């Protein structure tokens, strides 16, 4: 009813302790193995734009007589994820058939791991320090990880004749890992943080693109309040949908509980997110009986112990460990900057976080050699993460290209110029942009290493260590003549408007193109205007 809808929306209030949220997630992650799970068909990364039913073997569309053969790369990827999560890998796991009839499930069953999954247990640690949650630490437990095959994709259409579904089986038999968490989430921030962290992890391990929007990662939510029955939420295409669906469902249930109308909360239910509300899809009476059975055609996955130790040797350092290293000496990055070097958004074609981090660390090392004990940790951070990256984005130059003319040792030389105040920060920005702009205009073909000395000479970018007193005097008098009047000067001299001095200093620095320092201008303006304060 409209009244109830209004009542629900008026409860915009945050989560209340007397209505305790209990929440778990089920995440399906498509693995970007080269081939599909039980056939060697292409596992296309661009399946959304490929012709329908283009990447389909006889097995993928379940032609009679075909048989599955396991793609071992899926085992490697599942092992990597299990190790990263600290899960217990089962030396023997098996595939089982989950039977249901659907247009996009050509076999009539889905191959999954029901009785003996690939791995059990494990966790992801969230912390206030790294993850924007309220608690100082929060552990989200993992129940299990199982390998399974994806279904095809259905496109629902209506014509004047009939309601038909168009089925594309390019996605049929793509390998998935289903991860089921414990119901450990008690607030929305934890859910958001977990999804971001897990997404970054699968990208970091190079096992999945982690994209929610393309369906490479799909999240279902299991939610209950005050120990009432669990509600499963589906059809959640992105992070904001997940968050909004949880908020909506929480408010809906709080409303029911607070008026004592809890009959519908006594039995588990499945609800779908419409974009603005949740609607009932299934309840206990219509829960599907999947008639699980071991797949008679697939042997067990039977792992020797050296698979675990061998794959462990392939593992990269994990994101949290990298973040912590970057945030302490000698790098001392802020959390925000550490995330730029560690979190892969997959949205930037100009660089990926690994290449950027590698560039930063290499340059830092080279710069430390040049600057010795007096090196300033802020310099590489500011200039690479902010200035350099900003220029690359502005000019649309891929990092891999820019590295060819500004490899770490050369960039370290540039930083040395700044460190030793051969050039000022303002001059440095102009110099860096000029170098990159010229490179871009050559279509990234001119690979000559820039000669900083020549460029500094050519554009007169030297910092003025010994300021010419007469030049400074003339500059200051010009600024005063152009930008002030009697009132301005009176307010400044009397101290009524001290901040005006900053304006004059800014104008002076602009006129000198940053070559003369602010404190030099300050002294001179005070002298000329006979300022006593």
């Amino acid at each position, binding site marked *: 009813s409209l009244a109830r809808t209004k009542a629900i929306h008026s409860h915009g209030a945050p989560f209340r302790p007397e209505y305790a949220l209990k929440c778990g997630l089920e995440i399906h992650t498509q693995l970007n193995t*080269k*081939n599909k799970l039980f*056939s*060697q*068909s*292409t596992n*296309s990364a661009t399946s959304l734009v490929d*012709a*329908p*039913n*283009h*990447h*389909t*073997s*006889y*097995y*993928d*569309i379940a*032609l009679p007589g*075909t048989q599955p053969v396991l*793609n*071992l*790369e899926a*085992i*490697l990827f599942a092992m990597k994820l299990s190790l990263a999560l600290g899960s217990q890998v089962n030396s023997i796991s098996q595939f*089982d058939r989950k039977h*249901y*009839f*659907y*247009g996009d499930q050509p076999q009539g069953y889905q191959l999954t791991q029901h*009785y*003996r999954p690939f791995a059990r247990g494990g966790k992801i640690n969230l912390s206030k320090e790294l993850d924007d949650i309220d608690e100082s630490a929060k552990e989200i437990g993992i129940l299990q990880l199982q390998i399974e095959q994806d279904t095809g994709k*259905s*496109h629902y259409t209506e014509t004047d004749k*009939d*309601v*038909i*579904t*168009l*089925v*594309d*089986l390019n996605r049929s038999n793509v390998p998935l890992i289903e991860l089921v968490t414990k119901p450990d989430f008690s607030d929305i921030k934890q859910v958001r943080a977990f999804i971001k962290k897990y997404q970054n992890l699968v990208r970091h391990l190079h096992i999945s693109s982690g994209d929610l929007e393309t369906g490479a990662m799909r999240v279902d939510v299991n939610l209950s309040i005050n120990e009432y029955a669990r509600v499963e939420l589906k059809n959640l295409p992105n992070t904001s949908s997940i968050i909004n669906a949880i908020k909506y469902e929480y408010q809906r249930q709080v409303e029911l509980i607070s008026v004592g109308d809890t009959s519908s909360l006594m039995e588990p239910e499945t609800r779908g997110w419409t974009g603005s509300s949740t609607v009932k899809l299934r309840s206990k009476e*219509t829960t599907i*009986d999947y008639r699980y*059975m*071991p*797949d*008679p*055609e*697939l*042997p*067990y996955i*039977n*792992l*020797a112990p*050296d*698979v675990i*130790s*061998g*794959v462990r040797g392939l593992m990269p350092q994990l994101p949290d460990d990298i973040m912590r290293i970057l945030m302490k000496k000698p790098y001392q990055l802020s959390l925000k900057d550490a995330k730029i070097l560690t979190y892969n958004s997959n949205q930037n074609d100009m660089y990926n976080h690994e290449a950027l981090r590698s560039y930063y660390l290499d340059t830092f090392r080279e710069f430390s050699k040049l600057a010795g004990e007096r090196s300033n940790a802020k310099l590489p951070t500011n200039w690479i993460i902010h200035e350099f990256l900003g220029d690359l984005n502005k000019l649309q130059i891929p990092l891999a290209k820019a590295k060819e003319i500004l490899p770490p040792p050369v960039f370290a030389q540039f930083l040395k110029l700044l460190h030793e105040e051969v050039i000022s920060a303002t001059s440095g920005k102009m110099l860096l942009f000029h170098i990159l702009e010229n490179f871009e205009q050559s279509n990234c073909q001119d690979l000559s290493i820039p000669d900083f000395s020549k460029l500094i000479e050519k554009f007169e970018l030297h910092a003025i260590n010994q300021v010419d007193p007469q030049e400074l005097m003339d500059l200051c008098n010009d600024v005063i003549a152009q930008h002030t009047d009697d009132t301005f000067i009176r307010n400044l001299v009397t101290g009524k408007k001290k901040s005006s001095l900053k304006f004059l200093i800014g104008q002076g620095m602009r006129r000198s193109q940053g070559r003369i320092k602010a404190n030099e201008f300050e002294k001179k303006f005070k002298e000329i205007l006979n300022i006593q304060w």
Partner: protein
Amino acid sequence: VSTGGAKIGKKFENMNQIRDYLSRPVWSVHEYLGINTKEEKLEPPSAEAVKKLLRLSGLPLEGADIKEIQMRLAKQLSFINKLHNIPVEGEKHTKEYDARLVQRNTKQLNYTKLLEGISHQKQDAELGEVSGSWKATGLAAESKNAYFVVKEGLLKNRK
């Protein structure tokens, strides 16, 4: 009782011959249940259970002969119960989920074989594994713009 050895029969000439062959029963439940089994002793599943099974199987309820299905299932269940009661003392215990056609004791996969298996993968065009090497919808009774077509009827009974 032996059904006789397999033999090569005459070649089928048309679809009707295949239909005739497949529709001729070659064994009977009674053959295994024994002559004394009476239909009155069978415990048929409920009509509701039959309807649920039809829904789960994606089969239409409309026009279904519920009573006939009940009796048929009752016979099959009775047969399965007979199988369950076959004495197996002395047989090594096997968990039900170990029942499969392939051998149970599989060779262990070690790290070397894992990496070798991954690097030696290749696509077999004879299995349709090469993209675009065959037209997947070419065998379908109905398709549209390279999609398979599923009529509403198959989805109607899903909830």
